[in-house]
Each structure stands twice: as C-alpha cells, then as structure tokens.
C-alpha cells in the first residue's frame, strides 16, 4: 500500500486532503464547540397532519433561536416508528431528539438512554413552569424528568348525534349505565347503529372505549396498586370492567363489522348519520368540524361513560394525558445537548402551543396568551372542563404498562366481542403477560 502512494495523481491527493480535513471537522463537532451542529430528530407525524404542522411551526421558532443548528427530520409511520425506536434503543443507535412513547420511558430511562432534562427546565424556567404538572409526571422516572410531554390529549369522548337520541326518546345523554343500555336498545329498534366502532387495529376499543370504562369499574386506586404490582388483573373489579365491555357488545352496541373497519370508518358512519355515537379522543373534533354537514354539526354532543353499577371510579374521570413525550439522547453533551434541549423547549413552548390550538389540538403547557386564536367551540369546552377540574384526567390504561399487555388487551377485547374468550380467562392472560415483564 505504502509504495503505491507515489502513484497517486495530484488530483487524487487533493481529494485525500479534503477528506482528511472533513474528518477533522466532524471530529471537532462531536468533541468540542463548533459553528455547525446537526441534530437528528425522529418522530411520527408527517407534514400534512395537524401535529406535523405544529412541529413545522416549532422548528421555525427553533431555527430563529439557533441559526447554526441544522435539524434533520426522520419521520416514520406510527407502527414503523414504534418498531424502529425499539430496535435503535436496543442497539444504542437512537437519534438526538425523538418522540418517546409513555410505555417505553421507564425502561429507556433506567437503561440510561434518555438525557435528564431537569436542568433544562430549571435553566429555562419560564418554559419549564408553563408545562402542565400532571403531564410532566409522565416523563418522571425515579424522581428525575427524562421526557417532556408533547401535548395533552383526552382519549375518551363520546360524540353523539342528539337528533338521533331524541328520535329514540332521549332528551339528554343517559347518566347511568342502565340508561345507556336502554338507549342502545332504543336505537337498535330504530335500526340505527348505536356506537360506530372501527377497531381493526385494536387500539380504539383498548383506549378510547376501555381506558375510561376500566376506571369507572376499578377506580384509580386499584390502578395505582396494579402499577405497584399490589393488585392483579384477575381482581374482581377489573374482571367486572371486561364484563361491562362484553355486555356492550352483547346488547348490540356496535356495528357487526366493528373489527374490520378502522377509526376513519367509524367516524364516517357517524358523519353519514348511520350511527348515533362514536367514541374517540379530542383529535377527532377537527375532522368532525371539517366533515359534518351544518345540521349535523349543530346536533353533535359530547359525553363520557356514565357511572357503572358497583364501580369504584369517579364518574367524571376521563382517560388522557400526553402519551407521547419528547426526549433527548443521553449521549449528547456540550452545545449539541444545549441545542437538543432548546429544540424540545421549542416543541413544547409558546409558539408550538398556539399552533396546537390553531390546529384543533391541546398544548401540554399553559399559554401566556391565546389572543387571536380561534379555538373550536367543542375543543374549548373540553379544555375548559379539563382545566376547571369538571373532568379529571386518569392515565390512558395501557400506556404505563408493558407493551405486551397492550397487545393482549387489544386482541382480547376483540375476542370478547366475538365471545371467543371469557372476561376471567382474558384477565388471567393479561396478568400472565404483565408478570412476564416484572
């Protein structure tokens, strides 16, 4: 090799020099301060989605503040992102700033993959203090904050068509379980699908429907004990919550093809006035406004599960929180780390918060001002109820639990709907899966 170098043309030598220079620069960039920092930024919201627009606005704000930092976005679809995240986390190849699912935070933090962000929240106190405390708690592991909530969501809202309810003899949404069951009967008699369900991907039943329903039956206390491994899925209160879900299916609350449609299709059934209700989160508000006829829009009401017989849960609890949080790679240091913290602050700061409201979403922090933002009435109503404590947020059922539990619950609820499993058997399966991860 050595004696060959003499053969190299001047041009090739020039190339080698540039290469060496480039190496030196990139070395410098990773060690000490330098003019140019590149941040790889991974998430799962494409430009066209409302969340994607919020991110774009936040990136603009960030660019103004950190002109020397280049942000390279790496966007994947939901399932791909989840898989990719796990693979890169396991192989130590996480990007610099990324969205992390609530489920993954404890293990990722304990594996030392996430940067401790408490310092950043103290340094940038204005930003840190504006963040909603209950949401910030989702990113806290063993007393340290490892991730900042990306937004606030309410994952359980029953959207109903009040005209259809009236036609079935109901002036208002029933406030007892029995009332709901007889409403379902009445609607079925009128050949209207009571609750449109599009549960092909198995999360609609597991979260928008079941998260809050489970809380009604078990109460938050049981849930906290479950997380502490002091309660079991096989406890009667949880089995009762599965039985309630099965009961809904048995009395014909859902369309017969509930497990082969997706959530867009359940919304479409409602918008086409083929179904009296559908259940999803606050993110469905904007599509309803965009897709409903003016007459229908006037008739859309929002409700939540009524209390259930013998249930320990508060009747005003709804599932919600953040679910997705922003985190930074623990390997970052120096200016790159500061830039990453700045990016996270931008993603959850004032500009991003305004953009969220403008796009029909809920920010994870309180805004200094909402002047000039036109918040849709339904979203404002929901926000106010959450803000005023009229509704209390309880965790999205599966998120703090291991991924396996989510998977088993999602498929198990489908099985309950086809009578392929009993609530007791499903509870045992959930417990088995849960214990596997302890």
């Amino acid at each position, binding site marked *: 090799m050595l004696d060959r170098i003499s053969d190299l043309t001047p041009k090739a030598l020039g190339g080698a020099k540039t290469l060496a220079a480039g190496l030196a620069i990139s070395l410098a960039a990773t060690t000490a301060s330098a003019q140019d920092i590149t941040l790889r930024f991974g998430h799962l919201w494409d430009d066209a989605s409302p969340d994607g627009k919020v991110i774009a606005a936040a990136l603009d704000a960030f660019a103004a503040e950190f002109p020397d930092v280049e942000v390279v976005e790496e966007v994947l679809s939901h*399932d791909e992102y*989840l*898989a990719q995240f*796990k693979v890169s*986390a*396991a192989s130590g190849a996480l990007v610099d700033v990324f969205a992390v699912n609530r489920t*993954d935070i404890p*293990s*990722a933090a*304990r*594996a030392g*993959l996430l940067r401790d962000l408490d310092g950043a929240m103290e340094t940038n106190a204005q930003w840190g203090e504006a963040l909603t405390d209950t949401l910030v708690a989702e990113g806290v592991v063993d007393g340290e904050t490892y991730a900042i909530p990306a937004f606030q969501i309410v994952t359980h809202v029953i959207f109903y068509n009040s005209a259809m309810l009236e036609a079935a003899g109901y002036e208002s949404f029933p406030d007892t379980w029995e009332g709901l069951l007889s409403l379902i009967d009445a609607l079925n008699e009128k050949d209207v699908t009571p609750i449109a369900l599009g*549960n*092909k*991907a*198995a999360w609609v039943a597991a979260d928008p429907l079941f998260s809050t329903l489970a809380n009604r039956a078990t109460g938050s206390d049981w849930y906290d004990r479950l997380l502490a491994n002091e309660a079991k899925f096989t406890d009667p209160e949880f089995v009762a919550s599965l039985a309630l879900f099965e009961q809904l299916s048995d009395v014909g609350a859902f*369309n*017969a*093809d*509930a*497990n*082969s449609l997706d959530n867009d299709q359940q919304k479409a059934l409602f918008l086409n006035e083929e179904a009296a209700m559908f259940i999803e989160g606050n993110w469905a508000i904007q599509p309803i406004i965009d897709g409903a006829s003016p007459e229908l829009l006037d008739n859309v009401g929002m409700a939540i599960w009524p209390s259930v017989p013998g249930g320990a849960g508060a009747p005003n609890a709804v599932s919600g929180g953040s679910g997705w949080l922003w985190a930074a790679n623990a390997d970052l240091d120096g200016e790159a780390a500061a830039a990453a913290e700045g990016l996270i602050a931008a993603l959850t700061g004032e500009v991003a918060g305004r953009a969220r409201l403008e796009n029909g979403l809920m920010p994870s922090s309180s805004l200094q001002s909402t002047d000039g933002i036109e918040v849709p009435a339904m979203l404002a109503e929901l926000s106010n109820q959450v803000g005023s404590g009229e509704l209390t947020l309880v965790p999205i059922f599966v998120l703090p639990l*291991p*991924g*396996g539990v*989510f*998977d088993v619950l999602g*498929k*198990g609820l*489908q*099985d309950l*709907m*086809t009578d*392929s*499993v009993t609530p007791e058997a499903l509870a045992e399966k959930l417990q088995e*899966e849960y214990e596997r991860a302890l």
Partner: protein
Amino acid sequence: MQAFQPTRRSLWALLAPSVLVYGFIVVVPVVVGIWFSFHEMRNFQMEWAGVANYARMAGDGDLWFVLGNNVTITGLAIFFQVMPAFFIAVLMNRKDIWAEKFVRTAVFLPVVISPVVTSFVWILVFNLDSGLLNSTLAVLGLEAWQQRWLDDPEIVIYSLTAVLVWQYIGLFVVIFLAGLSAINPETLEAADVDGASFFQTAVLVVLPQMSRTVAVAMVLALSGGLKIFEHPLVMTGGGPGLASTVVAQFAYDVSFRRAQFGYGATIAITITVLSLVTVLACLWIINRLTVRSSGETDA
C-alpha cells in the same frame, strides 16, 4: 491462448464478493436470530435467558393457534389453488381450446399486483353492508348466505384464503404451463388416441411427467403459506382476536409491539426450521415417488 487457471488465492478473491453477500443476507440474520432467541430484552438491553424462550414457546397456546391458521391456509391453498391451477394449465395448453394470450394475462395479472392493493380491493368486496359479495347475494335473493366475512372468527380465515388463492393461482398456472412446455406434446396426443379423457390425461400422463414442477409448486405453496403477512395485516389486522393472525404477524407483534425481541426471534427461527424441514420432507417424498420414471430430463 492459455486458459485462465485460477490459483487458490485468486479463486478466493473471485468468490469473496458472493460469499460476503450470501453471508450478510443469509448467515448473519440467522446467527443473530439464534443469539437473540437465547436472550430477552429488559430495559432495552438483551439479557441472557437460556432456553426460557423455547420453553415458553412450547406452552404458548396462542402461537400454536396462529400456526394452525397457517396450516389451514396452506392446506386449503394447495387444494384450491395448486390443484385447480394444474388443471387450468393443462386446459390452456390444449391449443385448440383457449391458449389465447388474453386468458394467460388475465390469470397472471393478480400475481403482479401488490398484496396491499389487492387486500384493499377485497376489503371492499367483503364489506358487510355495501360489499360486492353481500350485495350480490342480496340481489340473488340469497340473504341467508350473507356472512360477516371479515368479522366472524369462524369465517375470516376462509375469506383470507380465498383472496390468497385468487391472487396467486396465476403464479401456479404459469409454473405449470412452463412445466408443460417441457413435456413431449405427442404423449398427450398419444393419450388422446388411447382414449383417455381430459382428466385421465392430466392425472395419468401429464402429472407424473411434471413431478419436478409439482415439487416446485408444492415448495412454493408451503413456503408461501408460512410467509403470509400483508393480506391479513391489511384486511383484518389479524383479528378479530387472533382469528386471522398468522405466524409471521404474530412474531412481528411479539417483537415490535410487545418489544420481546428474544421471543420474537425464537418464533422466527423455529418457524424457519419448521418450514425447511417441511419443504425438505416434501421434496424427499416426491423424489422417492418418481426416482426412475421421471419424464423430465435429469441432466
């Protein structure tokens, strides 16, 4: 001119690229998979798990259930896809009947369409209220035959199989047509002269001469049956419950939804071994049956 005589070293140099490519594509994933199968992920770190994953697999009713789905689909596919494809090919080969390019194209077309696209099309066919299938039955006054094609756990697997048969039957027709072109057409005429009917000719004269083609078709059907992934994923997500989940999706869900990479790899490795064994056994049996008489040229 002196012929190029590879020395040992130059031989290695020439082989190295293909050995490397083969290594990366085949050997590395298998080795990594085997390593994974003796570990499990905990807090994003792979920890030694011994044979726990294998033990868990043996007792995993869900896994055996979804494997049963693969077996059902594969069995039905061989019966309703490979066999009819053979007869269609023999029929198309009789030049005085069809053999029009059009027919060949029509049969083969679905094969080249992406599974995701066909799945979406068939979702529309199977739709409960407005789907082509149930609407047609309604028009024919056969409401009693209407089904929840994708929602009834007893039926969904057959609906899926129908789509797979529809999509891939053309592949087998083409394979059999290729096999047919290799056999002496006069033997078919001789059978005709000898008084054999269409089915007798197909079964007694054509089939035994195409044992290798049949072997290829069986191997494709078997490995295809174990590889199914996109169709159920798009059409039903594997549901309701596990009713239409196949082993590939199960392994995928275990790895990526449950983040149990070790167990996912264990399933993948086991299924790979299982399919290899099945395919080899199938080949061995076919070979045994046709050792001496094989009509296709050996060399």
